């Protein structure tokens, strides 16, 4: 463990400044828009203005004749390139619903790429793109997943899949229940919206016969596999490069049509091709997420034990199935029971295509939605059973004694087994921290005085560290500087700093002497990337194992050099010395690296170099947990919700850098508030998107975000990772809409009123106008 004297060295638990910051605060970052090659072309995508139709013709003649235009492609020009495949491999049952890089036969949403235009500069490309004429026979549009499915193609309907998970005995439990509580709730369509739009630069290096894609993020290694399949090239001839990345949140870094097009065009047009998305495109072309309707019922015993959930839900997938396949449906049906026992369970997800932008994962996929649904239901049960909502939750929480708690559910191929945690104990700490009982009294008094104020609680469990494995390579040079090569990815979350701190702890060195490589397929052949709160958990564990292997080798060699037994040595700030004599004889890590040079006689019969490569395998995901508490004030006249106070409790297992974890929690909370109150993609009846600027799609500003209080505990280090760490990326967003909804209901005094997110001022005003006298 880090000690007080080591705090500047950036060991585990130290809130040291990030290694990432210097270029980013001085304007020296290299985002995809900053990458240029001589003689590059600029690509502009011509997108469908129709939500649904059969393509009659795409007239590119005028565009091709425009000065500066080099080529215009339609689907005919890339007839040999198959549709974009699923990240986890082929899936014949869903194959029909995939998206081609350019639309073939039909367009299925406004924004569907129909043509790709290549020109000498970006302004020219945008001008000429307006000359491409798309003729379609318009077809009826389907805009709601809970409307009857339509024909898709070849006898298949728009219900692409029915995803079901269940255990126990639903029929008998409901037949014999003391009470059945029903709820019908909707989660609005919104998404990650990183501040940097997407971008991709394709470069074909004919000298080496290598295709390079810049602007990669999140899962470069997975995307390389898919690209190789689509372009029919061996893995060694395609490389992806992640530079600085302006936020990801799950939506950036999946393989999109534009990524495939810049690679294909770089080869076929024999010039580098750059594509930078604009914001209007981003809001209609990058993955949307979330939109679901749940019709759910609970069977409850007389004492408040919730005996069963039975959920039927409609997931609005949009125009196609993208790289995730049905993963959001799987996570939704697999995590709905949350931190409660729920001995009988069934969830049936109608996974349906509509004529809107395709949907996929956004930070906390499945958990954001189900936490809202489940906690709304718990609140309604509390009202209908006349039980205090906190007492109802306590009654049903999985207890520490029951851990590890297994249930017959699948989350991303992993059987759900909660690892040890004290859900009720953390709740006690949280309620004490916010003085919950006094808060209730105070709010009741304010309500008596005419204010619309209220508090709400949401509880959740998170998932992180999905395996099965990841690896890392570490190399120490003769100056004692260290390179850690990973297949992780950095979307702005501080990945380099976290990996450096783990390595620094295990090697006894300063984290600033460590360079962390990520997001480059040319440096390492594998990598999980950064998604589903797994980078730190999985890659970090691999880095730790590798660093310990390097440490062992360093101590063994140092023992020879110092003529002292290895188990009496320690490493402090890169210097190896006797544990009981820190200022006595010593060698540095650099000295040891030199002693292990291939020609060094001190190497003996050991493998050369102070270096190692190791793998970490995890059997089950690890499940951190927490709760949120919101206090809101509602304006009766405008319907505006002001968040007066916000509290988040979260057990992280073990914190690598508390400052960065709190940053993740607060940043996630801001997005959760956005989805709860402001952000929504809406469409008119023809399927025209109405939220394509930041004046329609409202991101919260600092005036909308409260300064939250955070209780970050390390009470239950994960038993599944060597350092005890669990993921931190998603807990800030997961609990937000549920806590805010509960607080709004409490404030306006209408139980069951909030059944839809976002609760915009207009919606809330309508509710109050209808139901408050």
């Amino acid at each position, binding site marked *: 463990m880090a000690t007080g004297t080591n705090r500047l060295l950036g060991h585990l638990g130290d809130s040291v*400044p*990030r290694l*990432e*910051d*210097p*270029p*980013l*605060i*001085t*304007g*020296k*970052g*290299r*985002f995809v*828009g*900053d990458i240029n090659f001589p003689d590059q072309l600029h690509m502009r995508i011509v997108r469908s203005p129709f939500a649904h139709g059969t393509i009659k013709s795409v007239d590119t003649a005028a565009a091709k004749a425009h000065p500066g235009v080099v080529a215009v492609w339609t689907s005919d020009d890339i007839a040999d390139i198959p549709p974009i495949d699923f990240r986890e491999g082929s899936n014949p049952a869903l194959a029909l619903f995939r998206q081609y890089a350019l639309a073939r036969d039909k367009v299925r949403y406004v924004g569907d790429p129909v043509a790709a235009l290549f020109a000498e500069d970006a*302004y020219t490309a945008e001008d000429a793109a307006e000359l491409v004429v798309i003729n379609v026979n318009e077809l009826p549009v389907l805009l709601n997943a809970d409307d009857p499915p339509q024909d898709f193609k070849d006898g298949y309907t728009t219900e692409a899949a029915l995803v079901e998970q269940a255990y126990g005995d639903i029929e008998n439990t409901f037949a014999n229940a003391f009470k059945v509580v029903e709820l019908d709730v909707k989660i609005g369509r919104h998404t*990650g*919206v*990183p*501040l*940097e*739009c997407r971008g991709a630069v394709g470069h074909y290096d004919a000298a080496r016969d290598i295709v390079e894609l810049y602007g990669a993020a999140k899962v470069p290694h997975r995307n390389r596999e898919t690209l190789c399949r689509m372009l029919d090239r061996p893995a060694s001839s395609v490389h992806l490069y992640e530079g*600085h*990345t*302006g*936020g*990801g*949140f799950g939506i950036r870094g999946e393989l999109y049509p534009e990524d495939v097009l810049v690679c294909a065009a770089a080869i076929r047009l024999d010039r580098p091709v750059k594509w930078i998305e*604009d*914001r209007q495109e981003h809001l209609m072309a990058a993955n949307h997420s979330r939109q679901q309707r749940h019709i759910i019922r609970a069977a409850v015993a007389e004492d408040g034990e919730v005996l069963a959930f039975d959920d039927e839900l409609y997931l609005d997938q949009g125009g196609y199935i993208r790289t995730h396949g049905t993963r959001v449906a799987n996570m939704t049906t697999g995590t709905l029971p949350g931190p409660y026992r729920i001995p009988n369970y069934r969830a049936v997800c109608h996974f349906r295509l509509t004529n809107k932008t395709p949907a996929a994962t956004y930070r906390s996929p499945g958990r954001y939605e189900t936490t809202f649904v489940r906690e709304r239901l718990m609140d309604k049960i509390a009202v209908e059973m006349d039980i205090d909502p906190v007492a109802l939750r306590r009654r049903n929480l999985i207890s520490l004694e029951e851990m590890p708690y297994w249930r017959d559910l699948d989350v991303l191929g992993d059987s759900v087994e909660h690892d040890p945690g004290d859900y009720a104990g953390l709740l006690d700490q949280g309620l004490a921290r916010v003085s919950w009982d006094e808060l209730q009294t105070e709010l009741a008094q304010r309500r008596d005085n005419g204010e619309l104020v209220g508090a709400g609680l949401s509880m959740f469990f998170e998932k992180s560290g999905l395996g099965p494995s990841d690896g890392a390579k570490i190399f120490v040079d003769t100056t004692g500087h260290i390179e850690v090569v990973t297949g992780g990815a950095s*979307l*702005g*979350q*501080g990945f380099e700093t976290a990996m450096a701190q783990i390595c620094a702890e295990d090697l006894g060195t300063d984290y600033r002497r460590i360079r962390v490589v990520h997001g480059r397929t040319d440096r390492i052949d594998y990598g999980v990337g950064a998604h589903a709160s797994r980078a730190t958990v999985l890659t970090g564990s691999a880095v730790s194992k590798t660093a310990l292997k390097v440490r062992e080798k360093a101590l063994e060699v140092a023992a020879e050099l110092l003529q002292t037994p290895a188990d009496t040595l320690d490493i402090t700030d890169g210097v190896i010395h006797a544990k009981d004599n820190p200022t006595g004889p010593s060698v540095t890590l650099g000295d040891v690296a030199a002693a292990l040079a291939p020609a060094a006689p001190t190497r003996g019969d050991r493998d050369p170099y102070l270096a190692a490569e190791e793998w970490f395998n995890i059997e089950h995901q690890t499940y951190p947990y927490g709760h949120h508490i919101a206090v809101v004030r509602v304006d009766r006249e405008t319907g505006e919700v002001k968040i007066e106070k916000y509290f988040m409790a979260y057990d992280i297992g073990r914190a690598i850098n508390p*400052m*960065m974890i709190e*940053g993740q929690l*607060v*940043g*996630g*909370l*801001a*997005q959760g508030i956005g989805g709860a109150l402001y952000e929504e993609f809406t469409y008119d009846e023809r399927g025209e998107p109405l939220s394509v*600027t*930041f*004046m329609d799609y409202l*991101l919260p*500003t*600092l*005036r909308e*975000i409260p*300064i*939250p209080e955070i209780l970050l505990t390390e009470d239950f280090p994960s038993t599944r990772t060597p350092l005890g760490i669990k993921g931190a990326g998603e807990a*800030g967003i997961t609990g937000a809409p549920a806590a805010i909804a509960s607080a709004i209901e409490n404030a306006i005094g209408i139980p069951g009123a909030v059944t839809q997110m976002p609760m915009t001022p207009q919606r809330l005003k309508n509710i109050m106008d209808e139901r408050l006298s």
Partner: protein
Amino acid sequence: MTEKMDINLTVNGRSHAVSVAPRKTLADVIREDCGQTGTHLGCEHGICGACTVIVDGAPVRSCLMFGVQADGAEIRTVEGLAKGNELHPMQRAFTEHHALQCGYCTPGFLMLATSVLEREPNITDDDLLDVLSSNLCRCTGYVNIIKAVRAAAAEMKAG
């Protein structure tokens, strides 16, 4: 429309004589013709503020201004904030308070906050928050941005 005009900009003290199309935005001119890519574009319709630079002492959204309108202007971008290796107090405060994650909105926030505090060193905290709410950040939840700007404001005032 595409006939170029000769203009002269001073960016971070260095003079740039460039020939640009009249419709080219100042942001694109700074990035492409002056090679200063620290200024970022987040929306290109004047909402997010990522492209904020200081033009003749005032914070400006460089996506909403044409390059030719800045002919003869003194422009400061994020690359000009530090003096050599010595960071500006605002830059230092941003890293010390963890006011950035992905760093894409950061140049805009740095230039906005610096400019406002240079113009109004005695600005009230409430007015300062109003000004900062004109830029968007998607990573941090703003809390640490507020802390950083307040800390830098105190230092700039003292300093």
